[in-house]
């Protein structure tokens, strides 16, 4: 799931620079004029002689997929100097450029806080793009080539600022052949999960692992188990920062359930200190049976996983038979965010490149290279689907309407998200009881609710 990726797709080698004072970070800060977003015009001509820069997040999906759309743009506008920049630390790389007023023309945004960018009028309205003609399907508008929900996603107060490009779901991953070999079936409720874990442990395998250094990966499954027990009301309460939302019995009981994984020794030894690459590698080597992750897992693992691994994703288990939301519920749908900065030098070019990217050929190319479902109709036609991609497709089909894109508080409130993810690490280390943990989470939520400097949204 893409939003997980916003925070969690990290790089192992994070080259950190010692900054003696924040002054050093803000050295080129504070020009005085605030540029307002230019009014977007429908059908304005792209100036083909203007240079164009696309910033690619070189993470789970890599950058190979960008070649085709960039080449098509070059073919359309041979005079344009088209530049690809890549990186993984968008905050450090792009924030100064936003402040200086020289951002790239199109950004694959993983890392910049979209809500804040919108609040500060830093993004270009992508609405006109939806009304344009599709790049490779004459007579069809872009919006009609998209899967349901894609045109609606990435809107803030009704204005379309972010364009998703993948259609992903998040859940729990396992190797189907491994389960078959032992005659195990994937459990639909948490008590069955714990019972299965006992069996797995007896068989000499570690039942679970997760990306311990970034506990956010486990945070979402925990919420989903709670969601299935309590129903959609819970999500609304939490997203709206309502008092005592985190004190809900469903949350506490889910925390108990997940903590059991650690306290009963069902985690791969050392999990809490493993990075995402380390834990995913151990999992792909068959040392642990279950791991939570988003749709990019197969692509990120690359050749590490054996060919016959049968990588499969299933929804997070619910709590019990009395659950108020079906087991099939998944977070997912359109994901990822391509954005055009309002201050871009060539916003129409950025928009045009985005139109090219959303073409059927480019999306199929993306799907083929990254093994990920994409946002346009027929985007995966003719693309051989791996077992991972097929299992995600199946989850999407079975979920039907029981699918929502994400917990909104994760997109709206960066600080609460960080607090939440790190608190799940504390929970799993056993340093807090589930009740203490839920009290702590409530405190964090209250802090965000009370902080006047954070802009509030509501569902």
């Amino acid at each position, binding site marked *: 799931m893409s939003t997980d990726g916003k925070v969690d797709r990290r790089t192992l080698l994070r080259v950190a620079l010692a900054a003696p004072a924040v*002054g050093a970070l803000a050295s080129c800060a504070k*020009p005085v004029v605030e540029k307002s977003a230019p009014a977007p015009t429908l059908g304005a001509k792209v100036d083909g002689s203007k240079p164009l820069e696309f910033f690619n997040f070189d993470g789970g999906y890599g950058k190979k997929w960008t070649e085709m759309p960039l080449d098509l743009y070059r073919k359309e506008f041979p005079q344009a100097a088209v530049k690809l920049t890549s990186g993984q630390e968008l905050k450090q790389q792009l924030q100064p450029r936003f402040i200086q007023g020289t951002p790239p023309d199109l950004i694959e945004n993983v890392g910049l806080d979209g809500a804040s960018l919108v609040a500060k009028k830093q993004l270009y309205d992508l609405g006109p793009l939806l009304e344009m003609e599709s790049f490779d399907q004459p007579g069809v508008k872009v919006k009609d080539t998209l899967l349901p929900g894609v045109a609606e996603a990435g809107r803030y107060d009704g204005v379309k600022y972010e364009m998703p490009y993948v259609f992903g779901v998040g859940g729990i991953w396992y190797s189907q052949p491994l389960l078959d070999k032992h005659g195990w079936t994937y459990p639909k409720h948490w008590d069955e999960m714990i019972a299965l874990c006992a069996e797995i442990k007896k068989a000499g395998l570690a039942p679970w692992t997760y990306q311990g250094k970034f506990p956010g990966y486990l945070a979402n499954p925990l919420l989903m188990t709670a969601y299935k027990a309590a129903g959609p009301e819970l999500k609304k309460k939490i997203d709206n920062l309502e008092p005592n939302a985190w004190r809900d019995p469903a949350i506490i009981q889910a925390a108990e359930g997940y903590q059991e994984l650690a306290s009963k020794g069902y985690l791969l030894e050392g999990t*809490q200190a*493993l990075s995402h690459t380390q834990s995913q590698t151990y999992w792909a080597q068959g040392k642990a049976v279950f791991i939570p992750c988003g749709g990019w897992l197969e692509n990120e693992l690359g050749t590490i996983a054996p060919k016959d691994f049968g990588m499969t994703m299933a929804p997070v288990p619910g709590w019990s038979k009395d659950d108020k939301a079906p087991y099939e519920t998944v977070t997912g749908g359109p994901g990822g965010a391509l954005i055009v900065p309002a201050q871009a030098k060539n916003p129409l070019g950025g928009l045009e490149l985005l139109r090219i990217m959303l073409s059927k050929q480019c999306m199929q190319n993306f799907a083929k290279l990254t093994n990920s479902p994409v946002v346009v109709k027929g985007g995966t036609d003719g693309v051989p689907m791996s077992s991972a991609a097929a299992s995600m497709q199946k989850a999407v089909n079975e979920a039907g309407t029981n699918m929502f894109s994400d917990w909104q508080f994760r997109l709206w409130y960066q600080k609460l998200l960080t607090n939440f993810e790190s608190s799940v690490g504390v929970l799993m280390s056993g340093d807090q009881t589930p009740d203490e943990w839920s009290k702590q989470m409530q405190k964090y939520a209250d802090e965000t609710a009370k902080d006047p400097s954070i802009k509030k949204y509501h569902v």
Partner: protein
Amino acid sequence: MHHGKYRFVIGLLLIPLGLYAVFVVSPYLQAFPIAFTDWEGLSASYRYIGFDNFVTLFHDPVFWVALRHNLFLLVSLPTVIVTLSLFFSAILNYRGGIPGAKFYKVVYFFPSVLSIAVVGVLWQFIFEPRSGLLNGFLRAIGLGDLANLWLGGRDTALASIMAVVVWGGVGFYVVLFTAAMAAIPKELYEAALLDGASPLQSFFRITLPLIWNTVQVAIAFLVIGALDQFALIKVLSVGPGGPGDATQVISLYMYTNAFSYGKFGYASAIGVTLFALNMILTLLTFRLTRRERVVY
């Protein structure tokens, strides 16, 4: 002739001073006004909000946790590193230098050559709980019970990172102290020996007082260093800053506020506070370690 000389000196200094002013002094100065704004670091607009950031900071529990960790490092790092370095250099200098002293000096100095990011990544592999060097070693010598989560454990995380700092820091101070010790005239030791002084006595009565100036400088360096530790913690720790806030330090919290939470104003307030702390502690260190200067 004086005119020409000054012009020459000024000409030489102009470029480095200019660079220093632009890239060091000016950002530091800018942090002060930014600390009084609500700037979020994404656009060019901001409001002045007086001392609000500092009031919030004072009531921010994470800041106090971070400060506590910094103070812990402040006391422990100089103590451990100075003691160890003095011990090693005294041994290297024992009776005018033990055999292989030069070799050891180079070996001790190795970590100082590595960039801090490399050190961090290196130790990440050593601390890795499943196939890391440290746990592997403990298991191999039959001490498997001592194998630990290290960076992933709340009680061990900060100490683990501290160990890396010590590992990386000792070498530099060994070289510093050995150089200082080598400058002490041999006659003093010979005289002490004739008077029947033990090696321990001559270390505490002769060596230490005579290199005190160097030790003082070392302590000041380490105190300032203890207030930072951003890079290693960012690379090594879980989270980073975790688990929970177990390895949270002021500099990292400042960074998180600026780049994750989009609170550049608040982060600058943290920076200004850190600056003030640094000033006070440096002055304090020099005041407390002041002694009679021995001239020889």
